[in-house]
């Protein structure tokens, strides 16, 4: 493209200007790093730098789902313990597990318990510490239907397997006697991004449907036989909102905050329940008696007539014997506070607090973490 007119007269001054600019830029970046670093810091981590120094900051990473309450906890805890600074990056459960194994963070957080393989690949034993509970709810868009629809676990599994294709299918009608269901196609929506929400949902479907377990299985991302993937809760909710005849699943908190109507799900005892803080806590309480020592428990499809079946704990992950004992002590102290006083913040933010029996078990487990 040499038809662009050359402006030969201007080239040299421009070149000199460019070189000086380049030199100036290099000089600015290289010579005074020590002088520049300290005034540059306050923008990001001023409090940490002032009180305890950057080295004392405890870094963690993991699940996005509990991020609102963790942020609340960390800021509240720092008010009473100014020497403790906790920095949490909600990068996703998988990312949190990866970083914890790589020891680039002091603690991880996850919505699905670590697998045995993941635990083996870590440099030392890792402790799962339940913090709060959440739930996943089915949302749908049927303008013809007023009132809440009822679902059973196997029915949800068959819809997500693509076996139940129409809203007036006898399987749906059976759960909803008296409701006039349209003869439209079911448009299935699921999460496209890897997500703890998906993990909880497919964990439940796999428990109630052997076929779902065999064909799809349990993970944060799965190979869905049918449907449209929406990115994030807002993506799924967006598809459901815009598409008459659609069904999707979102976190209870998301549905509550955005006033999205959701359906009731039949639990093991045969009762149709809508997710609520009470029914989620009931699911936790029902399974507390059989809590395994390592807290890696799935409470989907829990027993008890008040238990909402698509509920789950979310966990903070700590090394049993971390190299930095001072940080371990601070984290253990923090966890003791979080599962007792901290639980008071849960309800306002839409999370179900831990049952008392689990708090007791967890305090014993915290006592076993080596802090010196």
């Amino acid at each position, binding site marked *: 493209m040499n038809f662009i007119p050359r402006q030969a007269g201007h080239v040299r001054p421009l070149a000199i200007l460019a070189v000086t600019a380049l030199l100036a830029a290099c000089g600015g970046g290289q010579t005074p790093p020590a002088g520049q670093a300290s005034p540059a810091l306050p923008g990001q981590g001023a409090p940490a730098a002032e009180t305890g120094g950057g080295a004392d900051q405890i870094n963690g990473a993991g699940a996005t789902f509990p991020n609102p309450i963790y942020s609340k906890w960390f800021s509240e805890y720092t008010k009473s313990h100014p020497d403790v600074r906790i920095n949490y990056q909600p990068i996703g459960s998988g990312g949190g597990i990866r970083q914890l194994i790589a020891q680039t963070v002091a603690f991880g957080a996850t919505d699905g318990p670590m697998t045995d393989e993941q635990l083996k690949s870590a440099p030392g034993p890792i402790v799962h510490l339940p913090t709060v509970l959440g739930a996943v709810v089915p949302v749908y868009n049927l303008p013809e239907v007023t009132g809440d629809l009822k679902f059973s676990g196997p029915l949800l599994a068959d819809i997500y397997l693509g076996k139940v294709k129409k809203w007036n299918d006898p399987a749906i009608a059976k759960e909803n006697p008296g409701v006039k269901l349209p003869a439209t196609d079911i448009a299935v929506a699921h999460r496209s991004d*890897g997500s703890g929400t998906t993990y909880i949902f497919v964990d439940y479907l796999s428990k109630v449907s052997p076929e779902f377990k065999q064909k799809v299985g349990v993970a944060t991302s799965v190979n869905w036989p049918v449907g*449209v993937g929406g990115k994030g809760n807002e993506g799924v909710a967006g*598809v459901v909102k815009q598409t008459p005849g659609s069904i999707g699943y979102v976190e209870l908190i998301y549905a509550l905050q955005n006033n999205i109507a959701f359906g009731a799900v039949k639990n093991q005892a045969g009762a149709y329940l809508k997710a609520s803080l009470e029914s989620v806590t009931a699911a936790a309480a029902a399974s507390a008696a059989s809590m395994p020592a390592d807290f890696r428990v799935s409470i989907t499809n829990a027993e008890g007539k008040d238990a909402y079946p698509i509920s789950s704990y979310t966990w903070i992950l700590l090394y049993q014997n971390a190299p930095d004992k001072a940080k371990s002590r601070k984290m253990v102290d923090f966890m003791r506070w979080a599962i007792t006083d901290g639980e008071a913040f849960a309800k306002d933010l839409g999370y179900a607090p831990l049952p008392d029996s689990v708090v007791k078990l967890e305090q014993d487990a915290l006592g076993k973490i080596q802090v010196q």
Partner: protein
Amino acid sequence: MAPSLTGRRRAGWADPLFRAGTGAVAVLVIAIVVGILVVLVNDSMLSVRKFGLSFWATRTWDPVAGEFGALPFIWGTLYSAILALLIAMPVALGIAIFLSELCPRWLRQPLAFLTELLAAIPSIVYGLWGIFVLAPAVRTLEVHTPDVLRRTPFFSGPPLGVGMLSAALILAVMVIPFTATVAREILKAVPVSQREAAYALGATRWEAIRLAVHYGRVGIIGAIMLGFGRALGETMAVTMVIGNNPQVALSLFAPQHTMAAVIANEFTEAADALYLNALVEIGLVLFLITVVINGLSRVLIWRMGRVRSARFVARTVPLAA
């Protein structure tokens, strides 16, 4: 530094220094590209060893079973980008020609400014607009598509709104400002003498414009390829409207998936080594495809440049006659 700014002396070291400086920056580009390639290959070894070339042709993407294939993502990426290009090309060229040749002077600057403004909108904003405005509109369109068309493989499937058509449309909107702006600059750079010569030979306005477009066609192809590259790599806006279902489908109504979208969607939660490696290999595949497409467009431009002078004379004669 200061003397070179104020002094009038021609500094003998300025030219070599400038050459070394710009050269270093240019080499940096090569280093970055090679670095990306090395990291991509290194971090995808597990998957490359396990699946080999079949990775390119396998349709299954099952993180639970540990079976990974890139075909639906390759298909979705190329299909959406090509469709976007087909939609965007006439519009972008129309904008460029209008702005450079036909537009009244008072309208030129505002229009050019608005076109460039479109390029500055963050893709997440396009994506949210896609979910809440474009996808419902596309769904309405799909619902009212005549049955004759819906029996063809291009328009089959239930009307969902999200899917290939929405993705192609949103990509087209995002690509248009890039292609239009660059093409306009190319047309502006066509020497006035070319147009004057055409008019002098009795050419109509239409013929003069054809001549200008023909003169700048190498640059215009470059502008189109720039848009294509942008469409191939676009992630956020696409993933929000394409439906994210890895399948190889001709239907514009079907939800599909792209390479950039699957990486953005699944990378954060992938904790398993093979899964992570497979995702990185998707990145490698995208990298290689981009290199091949850029190479092909270079060849195309190079060949056009070589034959230009000869054919140009041959074609302008009957045009002006």
